[in-house]
């Protein structure tokens, strides 16, 4: 699957052509390690040194997509990326089996779980501010969550979707995407479980991020 999509140039606010694809390979994982990770680590260090509030210092500086290479062959997992301007702009790993809803009336209903979602560091405003640079693109995370909802629909899960949000991303999932905060999960570093019901997912796809 390769689908043309639009993201937004942060400087001009103009739409930019990008590509959403599911043919993710180990080359993309290596690109995150070589191109993204050093920038995330550098920004995190600067933020800590300058006394930035803990809740905006990135928590994903240690992520290593290359460790997920074996998962590329597992049907229960799927990977989706976004590229623009010859570079990877966002990457996501989904679990499509073995997860179910935690909202009371959704319990036991299977859903797609966003295991990892990362946008390139140059698309994350606080990181670029820490480095004295401008953010490059906006709407990459939103396009990935839309793709995750479509995957849920394709799996027959009716748009049901869930994830454990890093503290730095909670406002995005709750306020921008409109997911429900179900509760903190002691089994997952006390991260917040956020969930879309079918109705919320349909609204998100129809009306977009707010």
């Amino acid at each position, binding site marked *: 699957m390769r689908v043309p999509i639009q993201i937004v140039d942060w400087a001009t606010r103009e739409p930019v052509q990008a590509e959403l694809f599911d043919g993710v390979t180990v080359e993309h994982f290596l690109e995150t390690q070589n191109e993204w990770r050093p920038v995330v680590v550098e920004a995190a260090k600067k933020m800590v040194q300058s006394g930035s509030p803990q809740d905006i210092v990135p928590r994903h500086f240690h992520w290593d997509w290359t460790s997920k290479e074996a998962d590329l062959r597992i*049907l229960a997992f799927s990977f989706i990326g976004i590229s623009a301007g010859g570079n990877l702009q966002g990457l996501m790993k989904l679990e499509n089996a073995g997860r179910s809803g935690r909202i009371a009336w959704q319990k036991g209903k299977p859903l797609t779980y966003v295991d990892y979602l990362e946008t390139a560091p140059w698309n994350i405003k606080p990181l670029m501010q820490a480095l004295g640079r401008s953010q490059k693109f906006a709407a990459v995370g939103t396009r990935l969550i839309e793709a995750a909802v479509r995957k849920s629909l394709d799996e*027959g899960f009716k748009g049901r979707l869930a994830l454990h949000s890093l503290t730095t991303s909670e406002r995005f999932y709750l306020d921008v995407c409109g997911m429900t905060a179900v509760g903190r999960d002691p089994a997952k570093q006390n991260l917040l479980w956020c969930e879309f019901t079918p109705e919320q997912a349909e609204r998100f796809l129809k009306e977009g991020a707010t």
Partner: protein
Amino acid sequence: MNSKKTMTLNLTDQEMRVLEDLSSQKDLSKTAILRQALRLYQLVDVKLAEGGKLFFEDQKKEKAELMVL
């Protein structure tokens, strides 16, 4: 999206009843239930082949290893 192939599946009455019950409980089509089963079977099979173990924990927190052939 990958193109899909069609296959015919023969089930006993009991197997069909279980499939229909799961379909109703999980709010999933019968096809989606079987795709879920395949995904889980492959996942477990790969993890076991890598040396992993699969356990069920009961309410008394006692663990029983599940053998998958």
